[in-house]
C-alpha cells in the first residue's frame, strides 16, 4: 500500500531525500523549487513512511498530508472579469493546491448573466480533461438554479458546485454542493470562510474517492506514476521550461509538449514490453496543441484488444 505525502522545506540535503525515496521504491509525483525552498509530493510504501518522515524532519522540513495529490482540478468561474476574480476562485484554487492537487483557474467566455449565460462544447470538453472541477456561482438563488442547470448539466466529470444560497432542484447536475460562498470582493480570511474552504476540500476528496473506487473495479493497465517515471527521462520533457511539465491524473497524465511534434515518439516508448501507444490513448489537449493527454486503457480494455488481435 502506497501513501502520498508532501515534504515542505529547504533544498539543503534534499538529494538525500530523493535517494531515500528511490531506495524505498517510492516515486516523486511533483517537485517544485522556488529559490531555496522546495516542496516534493511523493508516493512511498506505508511501511517506510516513518523513515522518510524522520529524514524530512532531520533535514529541516515538514511533512504534510496531501489527500488530493496526483490529481488535476479545474476551478471554473462564470468569467475571468473582475466581478468574479480573484476572490474567492483563487482562494479555492490555492487551498486545493495546499492539499496536493494541481489546479487550473478558468473562466467561461459567455458565462455571465442569468438568461444570456452559455457554455460551449469547446469549453465543456476542456473542463472534462481534468479529474474534477469546482464551479463557482453567485449570490442569488434563482440565478444559481438557472445557471447550474444550464452550465453543469453539460459537464461529465465529478463537479462540486460552490455558491451563496442553497439551491433547490439542482442535485442531479453536480456531485456535491457547498453553499455559503458567493461573490466577494475580499480574501477568505475569516474562520467561517476557512471552514468553507476545508468543506470544499473534503467534498472534492469525496467525489474523487468515488472516481477512484470506480477505477479500482477495472484499474488502468499501468499506474500513471510509472508512465511519469518513463517520460521524465524523455528529452523534450526534461528540457521543458513550463511549470510541472508532467501532471498526473487519476487515469493518465498530461504531458506539456507539442502533440504534433512528439506523439509518435511517445507512442513508440515501451512499458512492460508493450508500445505505449497500444496501452494508452494519446490525444492533443483541447486547450491548444502545446500539450497532450495520455489516458491509460483499463486492463480489461487491453485484454479485449489482445483477444481481438489474436483472433485475427
Amino acid at each position: 500500500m502506497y501513501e502520498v505525502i508532501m515534504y515542505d522545506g529547504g533544498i539543503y540535503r534534499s538529494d538525500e531525500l530523493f535517494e531515500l525515496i528511490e531506495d524505498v521504491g517510492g516515486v516523486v509525483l511533483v517537485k517544485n523549487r522556488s529559490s531555496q525552498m522546495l516542496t516534493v509530493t511523493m508516493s512511498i510504501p506505508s511501511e517506510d513512511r516513518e523513515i522518510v518522515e524522520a529524514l524530512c524532519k532531520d533535514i529541516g522540513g515538514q511533512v504534510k498530508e496531501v489527500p488530493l495529490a496526483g490529481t488535476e482540478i479545474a476551478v471554473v468561474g462564470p468569467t475571468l472579469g473582475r466581478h468574479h476574480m480573484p476572490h474567492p476562485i483563487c482562494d479555492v484554487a490555492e487551498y486545493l493546491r495546499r492539499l496536493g492537487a494541481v489546479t487550473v483557474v478558468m473562466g467561461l467566455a459567455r458565462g455571465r448573466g442569468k438568461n444570456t449565460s452559455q457554455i460551449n462544447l469547446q469549453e465543456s470538453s476542456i473542463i472534462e480533461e481534468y479529474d474534477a472541477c469546482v464551479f463557482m456561482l453567485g449570490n442569488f438563488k434563482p440565478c444559481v438554479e438557472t445557471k447550474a442547470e444550464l452550465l453543469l448539466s453539460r459537464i461529465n466529470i465529478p463537479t462540486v458546485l460552490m455558491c451563496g444560497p442553497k439551491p433547490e432542484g439542482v442535485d442531479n447536475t453536480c456531485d456535491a454542493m457547498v453553499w455559503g460562498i458567493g461573490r466577494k470582493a475580499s480574501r477568505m480570511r475569516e474562520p467561517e470562510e476557512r471552514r468553507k474552504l476545508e468543506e470544499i476540500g473534503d467534498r472534492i476528496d469525496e467525489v474523487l474517492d468515488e472516481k477512484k473506487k470506480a477505477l479500482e473495479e477495472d484499474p488502468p493497465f499501468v499506474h500513471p506514476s510509472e508512465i511519469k517515471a518513463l517520460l521524465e527521462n524523455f528529452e523534450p520533457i526534461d528540457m521543458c521550461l513550463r511549470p510541472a511539465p508532467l501532471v498526473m491524473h487519476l487515469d493518465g497524465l498530461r504531458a506539456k509538449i507539442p502533440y504534433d511534434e512528439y506523439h509518435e515518439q511517445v507512442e513508440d516508448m515501451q512499458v512492460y514490453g508493450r508500445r505505449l501507444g497500444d496501452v494508452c490513448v494519446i490525444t492533443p489537449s483541447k486547450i491548444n496543441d502545446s500539450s497532450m493527454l495520455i489516458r491509460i486503457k483499463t486492463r480489461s480494455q487491453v485484454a479485449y484488444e489482445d483477444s481481438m488481435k489474436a483472433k485475427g
Partner: protein
Amino acid sequence: MASETIVNGPDPYGNDGYRLLYEEIMYDIGKLAALDKSYLLLKPEVPLFVMSVRLKTKPSPKKIGDVAMTRAERNVVFVSISDELYAPGVLKSLWKTYGRDNVQQLDRLDITVSGPDTSAEVDGVEVESQDQPVQEVIGALWRVMPEGIRNRRAFTDGNTITVMATEEIMRPEHLLEAREIHDKMVKGEI
C-alpha cells in the same frame, strides 16, 4: 455619522451578500465615508437592479489650494502637497497651465513653479473636476452590479447618483421604478 445602506429584494442571502460587496467596494475606492445614504433594489428574478447613492455633500472641483500649501518668493511659487492622493494630479495640472519648463519637482511632494506672480494664482488651478468623484462612484456601482446585467443607465442630480441595470430589454416600467427611487433619494424621502 456612518452612512446607511438599505437593501431591498426578495432573496435574503443575496441582500446580505450585496450589502457587504457594496460596502467593501465603496471602501476600496475611498468613498464609503463620503456617502450619506444608499438604497439597493435587487430583483434577480426579473432581473432588475437599481442602486442609488446620496453623497454627504455635492462634489465640488478640487483646486491646488485645497490639497497643497503655496508660498511665493521672487517670481517663484513653492508648492508643498499636503494630500498625497492628489500629487500626480497637481503635477499634471501645473504642467498643463505653466508648461514643463517652468515646473520643477524637487522631491515627491515639493514643486516649484516659475512665472506666476502670486501664490493665489497657483491656488486657483483645478486639480480634479466636479465630475470625477461622480464618475468614480458610478464606476464602483458598475463593479457591484452582477457582470451579466449589462443594459445599464445612470442618473445624476446634484449629490444623488442612481444606476439601474437589466439583462435584456429595458422596459418603461423598469425605468419608471428606477426614476421613482432616484427622485425619492433626491428629495430625501428614502
